[in-house]
Every structure is written in structure tokens, then in C-alpha cells.
């Protein structure tokens, strides 16, 4: 009898271990987190894209030398977060990925974060350090080409990812708040 109890106890422990491993369930086939991409943020923190799993995230791409569209994209995301009318910590965190990792070092990222007064708790301005950046951009619907010098042509996309990295809403509207996108974000955070 005692042996059986020990056995059951062991089984229970094993089950707990299995549950603890639940977050490493396979990603859904349309998850953006399938792209292996290593990132470094404005505070020098290194992390993998897939580590964003587990919460909703607003994602967009930028580069610091971009003088008009990118600052406007940042402003627009700020407006979107404000339009949610929830405390900062309840709004999705923001992940901005640079398309110009050669120029966008931690110093430049930090300077941009400071200029826009972006709280590092909720805003991660990042540069990719390993992985296929252009493929990641493509999964997000972003295409870019380097023009002469440090200038890129690219399209603007702001996307909302669910906790498994699937795009649940996206918008190409920048410079004003896309109300449909705000509704989608609101719906997302209300459901959790």
C-alpha cells in the first residue's frame, strides 16, 4: 500500500512537471513567433522574439534615422494606447523592431525612447542581433528596401499579436487613430 502511495505521489509530481511545461506547447502554424529572431532593446537587454509569448503585444517596425513616418508611427501607437482608457500596465506592451540594425545601436534606440518619453516597462525599442529580419518583416506585412545612404523605403504596419504571436488586428493608418484597431485592442484586453 505504502508503495502505491509513493507511486501515486511520484505520478502527481510528474504531472505537475508536465503542466509546468505547458507554455512550451507548439506554436500555432500562423504564429509570428516561429521566426527565430534575437533582439536587443534600448536598455541593452537581450531576448528572443518568442519570449514575448504569453501576452498581447503591439508590434511595428521603424528605424531611428527615419525622420517622418517612424516618429509618426510611434506617436500613433501612443495615441492608440491612450485611446484605450486603461492604466498603462493594462494596455499591451509595444515592441518596435528596427529595420536598420547597422545604425541603430543601443545608444540610438535609447535616445529615441527618451525623445518620445517612452517608458521601458511598456516600450521595447529593439534591434535584431540574429535571425532573418526581412522574413520576420514579411510575416508582419512589412516590406522594405534600402535606398541610398541610411534611407529606407518601407510601409507602415501596426499589428496586434495575441499571446501566441498571431496577428489579430493590424492597421496601416498612421498619423491618426484607427478606431477599428483600437476596438480590436480593447476587445482583446477585455477578454483577458
Amino acid at each position, binding site marked *: 500500500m505504502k508503495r502505491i502511495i509513493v507511486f501515486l505521489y511520484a505520478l502527481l509530481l510528474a504531472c505537475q512537471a508536465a503542466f509546468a511545461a505547458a507554455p512550451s506547447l507548439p506554436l500555432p502554424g*500562423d504564429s509570428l513567433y*516561429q*521566426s527565430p529572431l534575437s533582439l536587443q532593446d534600448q536598455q541593452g537587454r537581450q531576448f528572443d522574439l518568442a519570449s514575448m509569448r504569453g501576452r498581447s503585444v503591439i508590434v511595428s517596425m521603424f528605424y531611428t534615422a527615419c525622420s517622418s513616418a517612424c516618429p509618426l508611427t510611434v506617436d500613433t501607437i501612443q495615441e492608440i494606447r491612450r485611446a484605450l482608457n486603461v492604466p498603462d500596465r493594462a494596455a499591451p506592451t509595444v515592441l518596435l523592431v528596427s529595420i536598420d540594425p547597422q545604425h541603430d545601436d543601443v545608444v540610438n534606440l535609447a535616445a529615441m525612447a527618451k525623445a518620445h518619453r517612452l517608458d521601458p516597462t511598456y516600450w521595447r525599442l529593439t534591434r535584431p542581433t*540574429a535571425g532573418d529580419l526581412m*522574413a520576420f518583416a514579411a*510575416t508582419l506585412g*512589412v516590406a*522594405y528596401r534600402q535606398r541610398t545612404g541610411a534611407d529606407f*523605403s518601407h510601409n507602415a504596419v501596426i499589428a496586434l499579436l495575441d499571446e501566441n504571436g498571431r496577428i489579430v488586428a493590424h492597421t496601416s493608418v498612421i*498619423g491618426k487613430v484607427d478606431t477599428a484597431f483600437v476596438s480590436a485592442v480593447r476587445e482583446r484586453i477585455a477578454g483577458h
Partner: protein
Amino acid sequence: MRSRLLLLAVALSLAASCAFADARYVEVPGGAFRSAIKLTDEPGDRVDVAPFRMRANLVTNADFLAFVSREARWRRDRVAALFANSGYLPRWAGPLSLGRNAPPDAPVTGVSWFAARAYCASEQARLAHWTEWEYAAAADAQRRDARADTARQTRLLAHLMDSFGTPSMTPVGDGPNVYGLHSMHALVGEWVDDYAALFADVDTRNPGENSELRLCGGAALGFIDRTDYTLMMRVAALSALTPADSSSSVGFRCVRDIGGGEDINQKVRS
């Protein structure tokens, strides 16, 4: 017994080296070039194309079969929806068999941009940039830039129109051009790494504009040379595709940078 095994091993390695025999890369010397597409950026519409090495032949079904056999995540039955949607490798008999509709030496088509990109990385190469492809395709057997030749234009257009009617492209007698590149005009389209950006070129100086031009074909695209219908049609064919789409008339070849495998798929190094 042992000698028989040895013989088998030799035969297999020979077969393997034959399978890769066509993965030849030829050098394309660089030069100044006027793209038929309005690229908006380069002053005077002239682009400087740096020298590069390009795969002499399109990637074939046999090449791609060897690739998916090595890298199972690109198999038809395993590929993630993010990287290839339902039209992926539709002509193949099975995930690891070609069958009648996919001759081993025919160019592989029905491959998404993501998959083409991954294939090239497996050859320590990358997809061409648009300007590299256009530059290489401008040549004929004698000249580096044969685009002004109207007889050639007519012939290429006729061939392109023919290929619309044929479900399966037969390897055409498209001899090597001046660089030694074969079949540069055999398919309606060839994947290039920055194709989507050709159409996504919403002027970032007018960010307030609706940016829904992405992949809306020619809407955002300007042609400088409107006499080259064939080229315009090739571009239009690519413009209709998202990177996860596959088309039975789009294949690919890869390029390498001269002086080492730098900038492979623009992988970032820190």
C-alpha cells in the same frame, strides 16, 4: 559484402554530386543600369549594380526535393501556414515524391517566397535583389543590355503569352546569355528578395496618406520604360503574390555576393 556496400556508397555519393551538378554560379560583373521600374530613390534613375554571382540555372524539382528531404519543416505536409499557404508544391505527387507532373529537371514552381529564401540560404546564397535580377535578365547571348532590341522584345512576349496557356512549363531552349545564365525568361516570374518593397513604396514623406497600397500591384509602381511589356507582366505577376503565396508560374534562382557569403538573406550579425 563490404565491398558491395562500398560500391553502393560510391554510387550514392556520385548520384548526390550529380544532383548538385547544376548548382553552378556564374559571375555577373556589375555596372550602372537604368531600371525599367521607377525606384524613386536613385538620382537620374540609374542604379549601380555591384558584381555578384548568380545560379546559372533555375532551382529544379530535384534540387528542391533534396532540400525538403534535409529540412523537413519545408515539406508540403509540415510547412507552417505562416510561411506557405495551401498552394505550396501542388504539382508534386507527395511530400517527398515528384511524380509525373513535376519532372526532376524542370524548374520548381509553386514555392513561397519564404521557402525560396530558405532554399537559397541552404546553398549559402540568397535571393537576388530586384535590380540584380533585372540587370542579369537584360542580357542576351551577345549583349549585356539587349532591352532595346524590339525583335527580342516581341519574341519574349510571344513566349510569355504561350506559357500562360501551358499548365506545365517545358524546359525551353533558352540558351545561356552573355553571363552564362540559362532560362532567364522561361518562367513568368522569379522570386526576388525585395519584390514586395517594389509595391510597398508608399512615400514615407506623405505618411498621412492611406497606406493600403501594399501589394496592390501597379498602383504604387511607376514604369520608366513602358515598351518592355514582358517585364511589366513579370512584375505584375509578382505583385499579386504575398510572401506566403505560391504560384505555378513563379520559380527562383539564388545569388551569392562576391567575396564570401556575407549578407546571406541579410542575416544580422552583432
